[in-house]
């Protein structure tokens, strides 16, 4: 079909993700969506800040948080952001294999992050009996960090679906914007984590 031809040109343009109107729309739409997500997380942060000392006699942030694990998690997620940048760099070079490789590494790092987070929650629940229902602080903590974790899960599913779907057919102008918008979303998750690291863990450790 003429369609496939127009989406699979002889040479890929410099910015394949923005070469079509659909691509531009996707790109811009995701930016707007992230604007909304910013308000979502801002609201969650506001709620957390209002309730972070409302422990109702239960465990407080100073009792709970260990910075070592959180530091490792931060490094994992920051690195995954970097590897997704490499992937996009390879996309612009029209090197599909390398792009998939870097995205694969991104996915692995994301999964490692999630594993740490699950361990962290498990640890709090079993060692400290600190749950979602223990106090307003507990509810706020698990909601904020959990929402971020949920975003990571969604991002990973998105990434894996993309990689599997396109594994055999390579890069074209139809799927390039999809990869690109994923990487934007992944960066956003990373930025939110930096704020969580600062507001929840560092400030929580100071008390």
């Amino acid at each position, binding site marked *: *079909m003429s*369609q496939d031809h127009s*989406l699979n040109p002889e040479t890929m343009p410099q910015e394949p993700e923005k070469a079509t*109107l659909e691509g*531009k*729309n996707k790109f*811009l*739409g995701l930016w*707007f*969506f992230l*604007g*909304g*997500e910013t*308000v*979502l997380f801002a*609201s*969650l942060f*506001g*709620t957390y800040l*209002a*309730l972070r000392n*409302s*422990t*109702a006699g239960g465990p407080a942030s100073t009792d709970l948080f260990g910075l070592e694990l959180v530091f490792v998690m931060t490094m994992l997620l920051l690195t995954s952001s970097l590897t997704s940048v490499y992937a996009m760099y390879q996309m612009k070079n029209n090197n599909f294999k390398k792009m998939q490789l870097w995205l694969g590494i991104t996915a692995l790092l994301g999964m490692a992050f999630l594993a740490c987070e699950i361990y962290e929650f498990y640890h709090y629940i079993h060692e400290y009996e600190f749950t*979602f*229902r*223990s*106090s*307003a*602080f*507990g*509810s*706020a903590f698990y*909601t904020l960090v959990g929402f971020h974790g949920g975003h990571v899960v969604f991002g990973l599913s*998105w990434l894996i*679906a*993309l990689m599997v*779907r396109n594994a055999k057919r390579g890069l074209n102008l*139809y799927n390039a914007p*999809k990869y690109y918008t994923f990487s934007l979303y992944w960066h956003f998750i990373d930025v939110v984590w930096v704020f969580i690291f600062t507001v929840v863990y560092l400030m929580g450790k100071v008390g």
Partner: protein
Amino acid sequence: MSIAAAQKKGFMAAVWDYLTTVDHKKIAKLYLFAGGFFFLLGGLEALFIRIQLISPENDFLTAGLYNEMITMHGTTMIFLAAMPLLLGLMNAIMPLQIGARDVAFPFLNSLGFWLFLFGGVLLNCSWFLGGAPDAGWTSYAPLSIQSPGHGVDFYIMGLQISGAGTLIGGINFLVTIVTMRAPGMTYMRMPLFTWTTFVTSVLILFAFPALTVGLFLLMFDRMFGAAFFDVTLGGNSVIWQHLFWIFGHPEVYILILPAFGIFSDIISTFSKKRLFGYTAMVFATILIAFLGFMVWAHHMFTVGLGPVANAIFAIATMAIAVPTGIKIFNWLATMWGGSITINSAMLWTLAFIPSFTIGGMTGVMLASAVADYQYHDTYFVVAHFHYVIVGGVVFGILAGLHYWWPKMFGRILNETLGKISFWLFFIGFHLTFFIQHFLGLMGMPRRYWVFLEDQGLDNGNLISTIGAFLMGIGGLIFVINIIYTSVKGEKASADPWDGRSLEWAIPSPPPFYNFKQTPLIRGLDPLWIEKTEGKGKITPAEPLGDIHMPDASILPFIMSFGFFVAGFGFIYQVDHSGWLAAIFIGIGIALICMLIRSLKDYHGFHIHKEDLEREAD
């Protein structure tokens, strides 16, 4: 494809067509139909409220049912009537005004509608399943946490689902306006209705997530034992109020700004004059939207935030009067020196100016924090926001419907019936709400199931009820007008009003690809320019060629249905863990739809040049 053509293929084919459509004009009709239905439902609820308040210590409704009635009236009117009706008009007209063939995300456009509809239906299912929500449309915690039964759960899930739909709609409009304007359609040449659609979408984008979070917190507390609003576990109920109003105040502008856009277009058209102070109008819109985010705590003057916060929010609120005043005077100046035609669309517009001015002024009065200690949560506030929302938004929707009906449906609404319904509704409106300003200060708080005998409130309430019935009759006549018009109405030409903007340059109703050739825009009021200075019709920006159109899809409908099922699961898993299955099934359906959507390629289809040539202009 017109409705008539679809009917030839049989009724089921037409239904399937609408279930799967991604055409912005058909989605607009769906929004109007669903929004109109909910508007009638909300109106009925309003009449029940007014019957209960016809005399002191009346027992037409029980106390519990009354609270359900006020909650559902407010929630329905705001989320399920006013907003969808406006989204319908935006969908129908905005792409035409910028010379686009469709919106940026036709699939998401359809998804937005079906999410809204399933959310609204879910919310209203509560009537038949043990009682509607009864904590007010503001659903303040801890009353909403404590409320027995599942009413508030329906509120949470219903609004969450329909809110997601609205957010998607907002993003879609934003991208459409940024990337899909026709050549020459610069930002400062866009009609005011397109501008207000744009600014409204920004408001939706930044306001709705706050509601989303608020609803999640409420949901976690009610359904999963969290402690956000549980004081004994350190919770804080004021958080809900902040989140609700961070959303809720911009919401007011989400409603009124599109109405401002409608009025701007109508006034300019029927005065045969360019909009006076176009640039100022655009910046006033942006300024109102910006300030709209800075004033939420004026709903909370009595919460005890302290004098500093109250003073700051009082001043910020008063500041909104300035850009709003600019708009009022610019509209008057547009009419000044014009040649004014008064028909139904213009009648609603002309009625809006004094009515909304009153509503705006009582808004400034409410902004005065210490005065608000008296007004707050009384009928004064009820009067104020009905002056703004009925006198502004509903008048705007009705004006817009009269104005754009010919474009959307190809027939002109009957003028006589239009005028009768206008006068009944207009008189009824002022009768209902003007007196309520006084009732409030005479000591009648809002949301009162009964008012007591011998408190001087009898006459005012009786008058108010009489007015409400006039409004009801007026609304009914409007519905009759729609039915009459669709059977016997006068056929509309492409440009029945001697219009100025691009939508009047194409047939009524427009073909499904809108513009055979993308138009070239040479200035503000492009059609008017071509009529007065050009050839009388729009110059195309491209030679006739193939037109690319998006594929229809049933996925948005199924996906929304999945969330609908999951909604029931969330609500009832509190009673029995078996309902968790409904959550998994529902979310599963939605996820599978998403997966299909992302794995399958959608390339759309082409209308070929030859077919286009065969069709007459």
